[in-house]
């Protein structure tokens, strides 16, 4: 399966195992007889498990990435900008020259070029794209991550079913939560970018930031003592929670239960990225996004149904895609980070036999104006922009929708936020019309029933 041609055709160097890695794998009983077969052996338990359901990895591009400079270029037009476009593994599909590695996976991907969402405010647009609904009055709509966690997750699993890596939640914190689905579907957040870390460390401090902080009891406390403390705590709060029905006490109790489960689990070793080979880690890219993608693969491998990795900024800049100024310099650098992380993720999932059961979604809250502004930037533009769906459940190699030659409007197949999320649900095998009890007494569908999913790209 993963012979040398596999790597060569993708222009990737075949990963070399260091002797240390080899020995570690050998002692774990993972390494097979032939040197080229070790990766397939790894793909055993997770991939071939008949109980395995689909997983989703959302690559969330905070700030609104420019479609004109990524997946829907207009070279030659005044709005086009300086980038060239390149051919991809999907015949006829061309994308930005700064995404060469992911270009080789366009045969497994679908580009939607006709997103049309009308919301130009970061907060509103983030909410709309991540929940499928506008933030309206009293209803606490859950984000897609929580919805998927509820449908595909397992109540008894040690790891939470929704993990959010490096999110920048500041634009709309509710869009990253579980809303009326309740605290058990709230995400475990790792490397929270929304609030500045007062102790320093930035987007490249990933060795620290991509860990779950305080997962272990402090050294002075023995395991027996820790267990006794938890028992005392549970005894103490039982009456209080019973006498104070409501969201806040319940959330507290649930969070502690889940935290304890996580502490006691073996699955929490998913966060030990140092178990991976140096070569693979290099390939993902030595930055928070790249290593975040690696963490996403490890979580999906352990059955987490929904993981999102946000790419906001690099070099301490939290909202990098929001390029009101210096669009072309910034997008080029962002693209390089994106390219390495995403393409390696596709390769890694594929080699482990996980790509067919993992849906990758690439999206931000809106696109950017085709007209270049006086600061060499592009501003918010929800009228015609792009997203990408790849991997499991997707019939790759297609482009859906078309924009006008100047990029200003959609001329074919407009796709709304609900349409998009309904498509995501279908690709994951979820009935998007299913209803959940909400906090306002009436049931609310996962996606609004007027949504028109893009049926033709979903594999049955």
């Amino acid at each position, binding site marked *: 399966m993963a012979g040398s041609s596999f790597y060569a055709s993708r222009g990737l160097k075949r990963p070399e195992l260091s002797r240390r890695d080899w020995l570690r794998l050998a002692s774990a009983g993972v390494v097979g007889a032939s040197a080229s077969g070790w990766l397939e052996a790894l793909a055993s338990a997770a991939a071939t498990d008949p109980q395995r359901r689909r997983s989703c990895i959302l690559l969330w591009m905070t700030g609104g990435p420019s479609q004109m400079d990524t997946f829907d270029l207009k070279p030659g037009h005044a709005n086009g900008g300086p980038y060239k476009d390149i051919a991809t593994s999907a015949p006829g599909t061309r994308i930005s020259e700064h995404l060469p590695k992911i270009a080789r996976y366009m045969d497994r991907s679908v580009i939607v070029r006709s997103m049309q969402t*009308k*919301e*130009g*405010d970061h*907060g*509103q647009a983030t909410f709309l794209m991540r929940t499928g609904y*506008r933030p*309206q*009055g*009293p209803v*606490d709509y859950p984000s897609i991550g929580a919805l998927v966690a509820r449908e595909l997750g397992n109540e008894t699993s040690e790891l*939470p079913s929704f993990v959010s890596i490096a999110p920048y939640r500041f634009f709309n*914190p509710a869009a990253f*939560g579980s809303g009326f689905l309740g*605290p058990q579907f*709230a995400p*475990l*957040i790792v490397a*929270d970018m929304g*609030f*500045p870390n*007062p*102790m320093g460390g930035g987007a490249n401090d990933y060795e620290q930031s991509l860990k*779950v*902080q*305080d*997962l*272990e*009891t*402090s050294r002075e406390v*023995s395991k*027996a*003592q820790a*267990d*006794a*403390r938890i028992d*005392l*705590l549970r005894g*103490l*709060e039982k009456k*209080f*929670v019973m*006498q*104070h*029905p*409501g*969201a*806040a*006490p319940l*959330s*507290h*109790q649930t*969070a*502690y239960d*889940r*935290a*304890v489960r*996580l*502490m006691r689990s073996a699955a929490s070793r998913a966060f030990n990225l140092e178990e991976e080979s140096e070569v693979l880690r290099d390939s993902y890219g030595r930055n928070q996004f790249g290593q975040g993608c690696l963490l996403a693969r490890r979580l999906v491998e352990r059955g987490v149904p929904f993981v999102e990795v946000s790419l906001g900024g690099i070099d301490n800049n*939290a909202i990098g895609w929001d390029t009101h100024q210096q669009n072309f310099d910034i997008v080029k650098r962002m693209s390089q980070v994106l390219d390495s992380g995403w393409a390696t993720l596709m390769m890694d999932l594929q080699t482990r036999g996980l790509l067919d059961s993992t849906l990758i979604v690439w999206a931000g809250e809106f696109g950017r104006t085709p007209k270049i502004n006086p600061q060499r930037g592009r501003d918010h533009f929800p009228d015609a922009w792009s997203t990408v769906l790849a991997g499991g459940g997707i019939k790759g190699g297609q482009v859906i929708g078309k924009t006008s030659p100047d990029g200003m409007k959609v001329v074919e197949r407009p796709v709304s936020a609900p349409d998009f999320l309904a498509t995501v649900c279908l690709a994951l095998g979820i009935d998007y019309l299913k209803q959940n009890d909400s906090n306002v007494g009436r049931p609310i569908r996962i996606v609004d029933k007027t949504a028109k999913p893009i049926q033709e790209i979903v594999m049955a």
Partner: protein
Amino acid sequence: MKGHWLWLAGLSVLWLAGVAKLATADADPCTPPKQGVPGGEAVLSAEALAARIDAILDARLAAEKVKPAPLADDAEFMRRVYLDLAGKIPLASEVHDFLQNPAPDKRARLVWSADPQEKTLLDSASYVNHFTNVWRALLLPPSNNQQVQVSLGDFEIWLRKRIGSNQPYDQLVLELLTTPLGSATPQMRNQPMDPEKAKPVAFYQANELKPENLAAATSRLFLGVKLECAQCHNHPHAQWTRNQFWEFAAFFSGIEARGPGGPAAGAYEAADRRSLKIPGTDKMVVARFLDGKEPQWRPEVRTRATLAQWITAENNQYFARAAVNRLWAHFFGVGLVDPVDDLNDQNPPSHPELLDELARQFTLNHYDLKYLIRALTGSKAYQRSSAASDPSQKDPRLFARMAVKGLSPEQLFDSLIQATGYMEDKTPTNPRLNPVMTAPRAQFLARFASQEKRTEYHTSILQALALMNGKFIADATSVEHSMTLLAIAEYSYKRGTPERIEELFLSTLTRMPTPEESESLVRYVESGGPRHEQKAALADVFWALLNSAEFFLNH
């Protein structure tokens, strides 16, 4: 004779029609404010207003056949009012004193007293600290903007001074909205902070000096109206059009960032400019108030001042209502209008009559914040227990029982410090920027972000882990660092285990343990726990109390 009566009758009909028109126009809380308030209104004292609050709420409860919860006992009340006013729980000694105090009006006097010698919450430094935090969090959105970090210190000083002197709220807002920008912007680079010169420029910088951001923030904070949706298109479910949004934003059209780096440089203001072009179009709009009225421009009054005067005018019912609603939400967990900043036709107040009355009295009492606080905390409704005693109490908008509220990060940290007697290293990390921020505090605050919906406070797994295993708690529950634990554990003469357990409860949960709790915990401590050591077992109980939902929440 007959003609005389007909004339009188005709006049009466006209008069009645006029009154009816007035009455129906007033009935809709969403119509823009009218000029002039019907005269001859009684000015109510705080106590009288508290009684009015109860009368209106109770009438509604009776009508809906909802059984209100009983009043909270002294311990429950004390903890709640301390958290709401002082931003932290009381000391065990303070709890002892209050519980033993026989005075029948002790609850009101805990809040405020006419006797200047009496120590009350509203006159405490803690009140100033806490409400400075509360108003600052409200007025300044969290921002990564570097320049805001620098002028944050000034803002803090300005705000603290006004809260400390109980400046009338309308004057506070007027000052904020008319603070001078331009070349005199205090950049505070290398200068010591002069309290007199401190200005709230950070408000403008946090909004990136952009008219649209300032308009949205001003409207949301001081008028209780969420305009943002109307920025790009007509508001989906309220009456605001895109035009109206930009006409309102035009009041800030004179403000520009100057120099490289946008808002990071100084601000410049063409103080008389009052029109701007709607972005993406060629349409120019002129500044206009939200109720559609055109401002009466006066030559000596600048554009922003014109807006500020309209907002804080006595007859602007948006302003008073928004203020009163926010304070209501602070004490009761959920506003009379919820969400607090989104008053529109689809989102009416739960008790329109009450909102109006509170707004009127706030205005008539010269926007005195302490007056309002005394009225709110003096009501029976505020003093109701938060424990559910009847299934009919489910709807939080009826206020049949007190809501359980989440704590702000500052409240949680300060309560933990108080409870544990943690010997904090008090060196500020950057005294010029913030005299109160120390390293442990900063680290802690970063983990526990503020949340909008306090009654649905969401605890995350990471927060649970931080409280269970984090260094702060580990230190604070160790005998080496915790004064409270040390005192309780070490000074054992005349103190048996039951008394020590009591002290732990009073220091953390502000109450005495129940007989069942006492019995089981005494047994645990005397057995010594897994380490067979009573001191360690006490630390275990302390840890459990600090990690409980009862400590973590405001009830």
